[in-house]
């Protein structure tokens, strides 16, 4: 088990390093840097000025060295400008030159500086991840119980009318990506032209305080898409359990149907969906990006889109690192959980 974990951890770290390097390489291609220079400086900069801007900020050195700087493996660049002031990657205006650390990368816990928000990436991302955490909490709270309920209700009497209608519902939700269910829900519940006007079509105010009015639609939108899949899984698992021998024995004993479902079937039917729920996390990540963009909720997904659109390199790097780590960690946990739940699988 220990060797398995160590090997998996090694592969995970290697994957994160490879992927962040790819992101770093692509965001640091020359045209991307020119775009950054024009966003940061002025649109009317001449090509020479853009070159000088890029050189002054240390962007013109080999990409591999700068990646190592970002990691914190090699000392950051320094330069003394015409006024004799020390500039560099790790130089902070408030800090005396003697106190300036030589290395500042993610290994030192420094995630860099966002060129658009002019703020530390760590601080921005802490806030944004907390917002997304709240969203995810509510999504999970709505999605998991209702998906399991739908699945179990459909699976306990396979082929019945309830099963047919609930299965159709589950198929429809899996065929509806967030950007469609979101648009439809906004039109039904929030549009001033035709809709019911129960909720708000934007969750921008939810950052300051969550209300039923501004948070229902984003949570519903995200929960709907993930729900269908979990519901179909738990339906299949429930239907399988309901045909097993011990359920038949219980029936022959004369146990009531409700008792059979609650006492005997439920527990065995819920094992399979739980690994599926864990594997939903990577899916939810894409959903978070779409929903936060659609409802203008300033969380992690919104930050990712903004950072990618503005080529805010260090913010984007940390965002992609977080996203990749989430995907890989859930894969690892679900693998371990699967082995733990299913003793027939041996680790070798």
């Amino acid at each position, binding site marked *: 088990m220990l060797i398995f974990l160590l090997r998996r951890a090694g592969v995970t770290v290697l*994957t994160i390093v490879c992927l962040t390097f790819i992101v770093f390489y692509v965001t640091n*291609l020359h045209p*991307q840097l020119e775009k950054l220079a024009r966003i940061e400086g002025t649109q009317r900069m001449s090509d020479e000025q853009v070159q000088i801007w890029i050189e002054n900020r240390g962007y013109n050195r080999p990409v591999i060295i700068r990646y190592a700087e970002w990691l914190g493996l090699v000392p950051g660049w320094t330069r003394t400008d015409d006024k004799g002031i020390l500039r560099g990657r790790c130089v902070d205006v408030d800090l005396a030159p003697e106190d300036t650390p030589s290395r500042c990368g993610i290994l030192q816990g420094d995630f860099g500086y966002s060129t658009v928000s002019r703020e530390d990436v760590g601080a921005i991302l802490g806030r944004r991840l907390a917002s997304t955490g709240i969203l995810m909490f509510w999504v999970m709270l709505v999605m998991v119980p209702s998906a399991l309920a739908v699945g179990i209700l459909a699976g306990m009497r396979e082929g019945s009318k309830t099963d047919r209608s609930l299965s159709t519902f589950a*198929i*429809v939700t899996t065929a509806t*990506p967030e*950007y469609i269910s979101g648009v439809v829900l906004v039109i039904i519940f929030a549009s001033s032209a035709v809709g019911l006007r129960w909720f708000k*079509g934007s969750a921008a105010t939810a950052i300051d305080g969550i209300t039923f009015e501004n948070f229902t639609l984003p949570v519903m939108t995200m929960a709907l898409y993930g729900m269908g899949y979990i519901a179909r899984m738990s339906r299949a698992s429930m239907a399988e359990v309901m045909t097993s021998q011990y359920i038949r024995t219980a029936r022959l004993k004369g146990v009531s149907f409700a008792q059979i479902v609650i006492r005997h079937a439920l527990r065995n039917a819920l094992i399979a969906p739980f690994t599926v729920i864990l594997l939903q996390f990577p899916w939810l990540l894409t959903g978070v990006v779409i929903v936060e963009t*659609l409802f203008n909720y300033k969380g992690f997904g919104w930050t990712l889109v903004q950072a990618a659109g503005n080529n805010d390199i260090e913010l984007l790097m940390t965002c992609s690192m977080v996203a990749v780590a989430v*995907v890989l960690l859930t894969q690892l946990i679900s693998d371990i959980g699967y082995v733990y739940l299913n003793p027939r699988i041996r680790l070798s």
Partner: protein
Amino acid sequence: MEPLSWTQIFGQMLYQFIPVWVAIALVFAFSIRFKRKLGLYGKLFDSVIGMIGFGIVIFWILTALFAPGISLGGLTLVPSIATFDPLAQIAALKNKVPGTFAPNSEIVYLLGGDNLGRDVFSRMVHGSRLVIGIAPVATAFAFMVGITLGLPAGYFGGRFDTVLSFLSNLVLAFPVILLFYLLVTPEIQAAGSEVNLWLGKKWITSIPNILAAVLFAFPIIFFLLLWNSKFFTQPTKRNILVAISLVFGLWAYSGLAFNADPVSVFGMSPNLLNVFVSVVFVNSPTVFRIVRGLTLDIQTRDYVAAAQTRGEGSWYIMLWEILPNARGPLIVDFCLRIGYTTILLGTLGFFGLGVSPESPDWGSTINDGRKLLSIFPHPALPPALSLMSLVLGLNLLADGLREESLRD
């Protein structure tokens, strides 16, 4: 003039779709009549779910086909479904509700006008052309890549498998949206040095272009391996097939991957190429994993052992013994994956990374419409429902196919 009532609007829309209804009726009548002779396709008509799914999918395929109408030498064979040019703007009909007439004219927008005064109905109909044109082809390319790499990875195993599995997990761990942003932004299309090709054509060594050059080579490799392994003992037949695949493949390849087709038949605009490449790139690793898993499973069967004892080559066993026996799950996954690709294309459009800003594809139209969603809901709703129905149809079709292929 009085705006049209909803009954009139729906009546008019049903009327516009007449060519599609006629064609669907013909397809269904023919298929049900001969369903016993049509193999797996015919069996689809034994399941209600499969028929509904197939109906929805064929509806959109025919809509895409007939959208601008078909005419031959001035003679209209099929009248166009779209009532207007999807790009034409009439300022007076900006954001107008469905069924509004333009002042002092007979011009009416069935589903209203969008924020630039374009016809929502015609844009929806024309949008199907882009989706139906890109999604199945991109999925087919992803399957070629996945099959050509997945079969040997599963069959030979070893270091080749380890490296490819690591690479595919690498792509799968990438957040899809970030990947799209990185591949589709115009700055990245311009990054690279220019290479001079033949006939004065130029090619930029940007990341999407290199990816295209790599990914688009797989179909050629696939067909070469296919013919070579099957007809190895009949050199004449093999040489003819290989020559045909090579000539046609390299011709298409020069046009699609390098945009330098000598006779300009094949070609893609740089934006379309980017969208296409990113969708293929995202889908291939999953197909690779599925094919690899199926190969590992089928490899242990007796008929594979029999072929090995006969002394068949590895590629013959992979392509002509293992692959045909893996077709059931692969066909089902192909349908599901077209649906997923449709969702991905919509996502690209939704983030404004679509084919072009003006393009009527459903994702971009939803993106245009969502900005004024709570005041003018009508421009975003038709493309949203269209995309949903197409994906739903593909899912139902896959369910029907799975049901029918499990039955025997």
